[in-house]
């Protein structure tokens, strides 16, 4: 049996702002096994990126509460202090590719020079050796190694994104967090990046957290799916079950709003908009937009475990 790689339990992260406390990540739990990919899907502002930042511990300064358990290889990362986390985890074990990371490449510094920074800084590796590793990493994402001496301004968006992914893999991490890795790219370029990620997944057994708002795209990588709504994961299930039979009313509606090419279905949408995370409703956060809402929904539904670690946060699934 494969062992549990990452397990996030009751993670909470709130921001302090002028207008009050923003509950960006509010009691979130999910887990993945080694070599698995969990897709984190949800609409903008639901807290997906905040969750990623909470895991890799790259948080803005105005965080007011940050607590919970993040078990990584059985070790609770929350017990590590900042220095230990920086030395032992970030980059070496877990890497993070933030949204629009391709724009962070300095256009006038050679690709190779920028790629090797994690190696020369964290591992104190010599420049020549680091550049060799960088060349190898480029080949892995389907880019000719001569591109080490090119400048980012000469490259297309898809090329830059591949370089970013190659860089994130340079230190041979065990887990990579990809935040909307293809959202600004074209259809064909996006497919190309997905192919690369699939083969990396297959060949290296890398675990991934794949954050996206695009449900169709999420199925390109996901072994497990976590649906986030208003700071909470409302459903966590296997890909097999989720794409054919989503359980939470929000997931169902979301699935109904996905246009499909190959099947004919009626499209639907969710009226209204998600609640503010400044002052979310006391009960179920989706209740106001939910067609099945009933008395119970005035209270916060617990995570109802249906099978192992998989749950749905909805009163409809409470056994009587």
């Amino acid at each position, binding site marked *: 049996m494969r062992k549990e790689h990452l397990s996030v339990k009751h993670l909470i992260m709130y921001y302090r702002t002028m207008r009050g406390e923003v509950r960006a990540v509010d009691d979130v739990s999910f887990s993945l096994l080694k070599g698995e990919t969990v897709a984190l899907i949800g*609409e903008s502002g639901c807290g997906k990126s905040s969750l990623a930042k909470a895991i890799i511990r790259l948080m803005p300064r105005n965080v007011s509460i940050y607590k919970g358990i993040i078990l990584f290889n059985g070790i609770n990362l929350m017990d590590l202090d900042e220095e230990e986390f920086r030395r032992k985890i970030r980059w070496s074990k877990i890497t993070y590719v933030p949204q629009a990371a391709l724009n962070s490449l300095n256009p006038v510094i050679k690709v190779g020079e920028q790629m090797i920074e994690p190696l020369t800084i964290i591992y104190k590796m010599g420049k020549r050796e680091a550049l060799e590793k960088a060349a190898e990493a480029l080949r892995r994402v389907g880019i000719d190694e001569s591109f080490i001496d090119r400048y980012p301004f000469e490259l297309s968006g898809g090329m830059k994104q591949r370089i970013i992914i190659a860089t994130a893999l340079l230190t041979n991490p065990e887990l990579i967090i990809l935040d909307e890795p293809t959202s600004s790219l074209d259809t*064909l370029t996006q497919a190309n990046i997905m192919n690369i990620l699939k083969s990396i997944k297959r060949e290296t057994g890398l675990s991934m957290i794949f954050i996206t708002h695009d449900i169709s795209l999420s199925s390109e990588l996901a072994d497990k799916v976590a649906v986030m709504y208003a700071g909470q994961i409302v459903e966590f299930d296997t890909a097999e079950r989720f794409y054919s039979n989503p359980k939470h009313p929000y997931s169902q509606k979301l699935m109904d*709003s996905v*246009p*499909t*090419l190959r099947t004919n279905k009626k499209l639907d949408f969710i009226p209204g908009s998600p609640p503010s995370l400044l002052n979310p409703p006391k009960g179920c956060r989706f209740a106001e937009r939910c067609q099945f809402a009933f008395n119970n929904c005035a209270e916060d539904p617990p995570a109802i475990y249906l099978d192992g670690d998989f749950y749905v946060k909805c009163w409809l699934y409470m056994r009587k």
Partner: protein
Amino acid sequence: MLALHEEVVMGAPLLLVENLRKYFEIKRVFLGKKTYLRAVDGVSLSLVRGEAISIVGESGCGKTTLGKTILRLYKPTDGRIIFDGRDITHLGWKDLKWYRRETGLVQQDPFGALPPFMTVKRILEEPLVINGVKNRREREEKIYKALERVKLTPVEDFINKYPHMLSGGQQQRVVIARATILEPKMIVADEPISMLDASVRIEILKLLQELQQKYNQSIIYITHDLSTTKYFSERIYIMYAAQIVESASTSDLLQNPMHPYTRALLNVIPDPDPGNRFIIRNVPAGEPPNLMNPPPGCRFHPRCPNFIKGVCDTREPSIIEVAKGHYVKCWLYG
């Protein structure tokens, strides 16, 4: 040729675009030689009254330029645009005012398209003032009607708000209300949903659909996302490197794609399916050409899996009708 076909079938089109070209001059300081970026290079299409068509292409293929040139926000370099029986290709500034009233534009980024310091009411009032609706009561009535059309109701809740107080979907509704407030004959919707969230996208798509069906609004829908076209338009034009490479009725094109580029596009778009993660998709290598110096022959030939040496790389394919109303610009069929 495209136009002829539809004229016979469906009566006189509202819009007829023939061999339209739009080149942008690139100033080369060092070489002193003029070069051109050929953003739209010989595009023909037609739009029947009350119809919705889609123009699908990747970024940089010239689809936005095509939309803007059709709206005469750009001056065409060559070709003809006939709108409602009138040649508007070279209309002067004064006459264009008439054309502006008959057309509307919905842009991609709703927040960027709305002035942040104006209320919804003032935003919608401006086109009315400019177009000489002098009576204030009449203006107000039209604003109410426009907001009701885009379902921002009750109108009182929205009319005095500023754009930042609205959600993305509501902002896009205001943009659509503004584009349609003068009841134009045609609107160009350029990626109207790509900046919006999944659940809101369909709301806007359905709204555009309703405008078309209920108010007989003719719409040119420009998008990079093939999967949304099927719910919306009657005809699809596939654009690659400044040219239309295939056009057909929506169902025909999706079920029976002919051009290798269209096939590649359709092949890589996923539907939500857990099996997807085990498939490595066929993606044509390379990237779209630079429009300053497109390749000779067919512009897709450097990436094409069906490339025929000595043919595709030397002669430009002409547009061939392979089935009724289905046109392809590809040597495989000629």
